[in-house]
């Protein structure tokens, strides 16, 4: 351990600083490299339509991954998110098809998602059971409830104005229009980032994940924090479910299977530590977009999904090894 002289920051060359920034935000660098390669490989990649598509397609998993970031920052995991997306997507469809106006239907759906998350958080925190197993039970049960809603039958006949939630095109730059779904994803990222970085709740999330005992002995309400992060994850899953149903124009009980794994992969790829205490939404955002770009470029090149899966796995492993390597280097420095 090093002693550093009072009040004087160690002098740093600008080259060293750039290197530090590159290491800190390596996921952005990787993202830009992949985008550059994609642009070279396919002339259709950097077109306004394709960029709008990227955001639209990334939104559902992206919103879920933002909620998952909170959970993983406390050193926990939420496997129930895919089922909560399906449950909330079906619930909103059933309510709307039953003639309920849009706003109350949305409110009930979001509340349901929050409740689902809170239950998992409460059991995890109060019974001191690993969240892995509690949320695994949630994954199974919530999917079961989803099927029970309509006996497994998809729900159609939704009002057209509900579809507008996801598909309204919003001009962001001259010549570039992004669907409202993509915009909602970006706005939620910014809101979540602000919550984590600018509020005491955010600080408490990092502190609890960094060292739960030290956080408790510093007077943090650790139980409440755990319940809240799972509630955030539940709300985000509900929003993702609403967006999904709005885009599909149909409530589909089999939707979002395995979504939890895509979300976890994105969070970890974005540099958030599975042990908690380190990471953030910025990394999650870029990781979600990176995975989407990969899928997109394979489609543009006409390569099948088998190639996609293989290469996606390899990229996740490479990124995680890179982060591990950086950690080790830092530890020694």
């Amino acid at each position: 351990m090093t002693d550093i002289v009072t009040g004087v920051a160690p002098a740093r060359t600008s080259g060293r600083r750039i290197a530090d920034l590159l290491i800190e935000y390596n996921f952005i660098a990787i993202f830009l490299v992949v985008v550059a390669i994609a642009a070279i490989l396919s002339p259709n990649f950097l077109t306004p339509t394709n960029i709008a598509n990227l955001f639209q397609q990334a939104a559902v998993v992206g919103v879920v991954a933002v909620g998952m970031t909170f959970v993983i920052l406390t050193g926990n995991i939420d496997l129930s998110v895919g089922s909560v997306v399906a449950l909330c997507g079906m619930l909103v469809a059933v309510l709307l098809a039953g003639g309920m106006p849009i706003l109350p239907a949305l409110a009930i759906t979001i509340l349901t998602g929050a409740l689902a998350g809170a239950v998992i958080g409460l059991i995890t925190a109060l019974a001191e059971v690993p969240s892995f197993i509690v949320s695994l039970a949630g994954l199974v049960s919530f999917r079961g409830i989803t099927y029970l809603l309509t006996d497994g039958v998809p729900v159609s006949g939704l009002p057209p104005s509900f579809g507008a939630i996801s598909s309204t095109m919003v001009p962001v730059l001259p010549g570039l229009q992004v669907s409202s779904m993509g915009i909602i994803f970006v706005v939620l990222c910014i809101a979540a980032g602000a919550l984590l970085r600018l509020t005491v709740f955010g600080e408490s999330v990092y502190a609890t994940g960094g060292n739960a005992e030290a956080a408790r002995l510093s007077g943090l309400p650790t139980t409440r924090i755990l319940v809240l992060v799972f509630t955030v994850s539940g709300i985000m899953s509900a929003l993702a479910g609403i967006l999904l149903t709005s885009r599909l124009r149909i409530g589909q009980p089999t939707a979002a299977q395995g979504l939890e794994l895509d979300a976890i992969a994105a969070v970890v790829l974005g540099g958030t530590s599975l042990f908690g205490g380190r990471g953030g939404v910025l990394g999650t955002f870029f990781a979600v977009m990176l995975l989407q770009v990969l899928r997109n470029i394979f489609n543009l090149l006409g390569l099948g999904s088998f190639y996609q899966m293989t290469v996606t796995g390899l990229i996740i492993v490479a990124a995680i090894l890179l982060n591990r390597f950086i950690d080790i280097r830092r530890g020694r420095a």
Partner: protein
Amino acid sequence: MTPDVLTIEGLSKRFPPSIIALDEANIAVRKGEVHCLLGANGAGKSTFLKLIAGALSPSAGKIHVDGKPVHFRAPAEAARAGISMIYQELDLVPQLTVAENLFLGHPPSRFGFLDKRSRRVQAREALARVGASFTPEDRVGSLSIANQQLTAIARSLTREAKVIIMDEPSAALNETELKAVFRVIRELTAQGVAILYVSHRLGELREIGDRVTVLRGGRTIETFDVEGTPDSALVEAILGRERGFVERRDRPPVTGEVILKVDRLTAAHGLDIREFELRRGEIAGLTGLNGSGRTSFLKALFGADPHEARMSLYGKPYKAKTPRDAIAAGVGLVPESRKTEGLILDAPIYRNATLPAMQGQFLARHGQLKAKTVPVLRQLSTKYGSPEQKVIQLSGGNQQKVVLAKWIIKGARLLLLDEPSRGLDIGAKADLYRLVDELAADGAAVIVASSELEELYAACDTIWVFHEGRNIARFDPATTDQDTILKHQILGDHHHD
């Protein structure tokens, strides 16, 4: 005369560059005797035991078992030679059965297959020898601590131990349980097994010991026959005569009103504190052997451990069910382990330092938090680069100052410091106690628990001696010499200044 089963000559252990943990220790353990090992904290007992059990290798010296020289490179080699160690925190696997534990690492086998029948039979024999009332099929996790202790002893027997080393077995046992263990020890010694028994407690030594060797400062001082040696001679051997001269800090007499009054506080493991009080501006030291209840008392006061209590703080009834309650009442704890309990190592200095203070607000105003942190760190003369630096990059002393800064920024009026100087060098220790002085002069009240009596002696207005979960004595260090306090630590006599 009975032959020696274990003889040790000139055994030394040096940890480069300059630490001598054990310095030419000698001991001779006879067949079938209970040989006790006594010594104060830091006398070298643990190192000595680890060398004998093969967990450490010696820098110099000879070990003979049954007259034959041995060199252990691993605990398994010592076990094969007939030396068996029973650690204080028993190294049993709670999920496995007694029989599985007894033969862990050396299961009976035939043609490479586990021979369960023979394991069961041998396990029964070993359990019968220790007079166990449980069966080989019981899970170790379901047994009482005393029965786990017996399981550990039985395991030594399955390895045909000639010498069984027991490291403070009484720490986790109550009277009745200890009696049962003693009965087993007597039966084993009657069968020729030798026991090397480590304890702080002179009472136990009188009850079970044949001879006793005293360690002090890494040297074996003398071996006594237990019978015919008065306590005073043993205590003198433990303490020695060459005490370092400690200069007491010049402190004004404490005149503040009583702010903390504990009528009675009880908690798990026999913690029972009565009539403890603390005045405004007072620095009270808690001393006692390991396991005397210092840490448990501080944790209970801070609401970090469950407890029952009748006490008042600043004239109001005080009850802390959680650390949050304690903090709200103006209490702050610097925990024993700053790395696992005190700090979020990966987080920046200022976030650690303002963690308690920021609770209850909605926005984390980082600029403001840093502005609160910097002057306090300066007041503590902390050496650091910037408030955004991660605490893991600081030295131990400076990390401790960050933990202390948490409570200064929060404005705590009652500070509980648990081993605050552990791992600090002399300069950092002096800094720390100077700071405690300033806080007390400012009207805070401070309780410092430490295993270093000299530090307490130099810094405190009052020293409380804790013994087996009770506050048995209170001294004014200005009028009492250290030896008197040490004797109370060891013997557990009551005294109140």
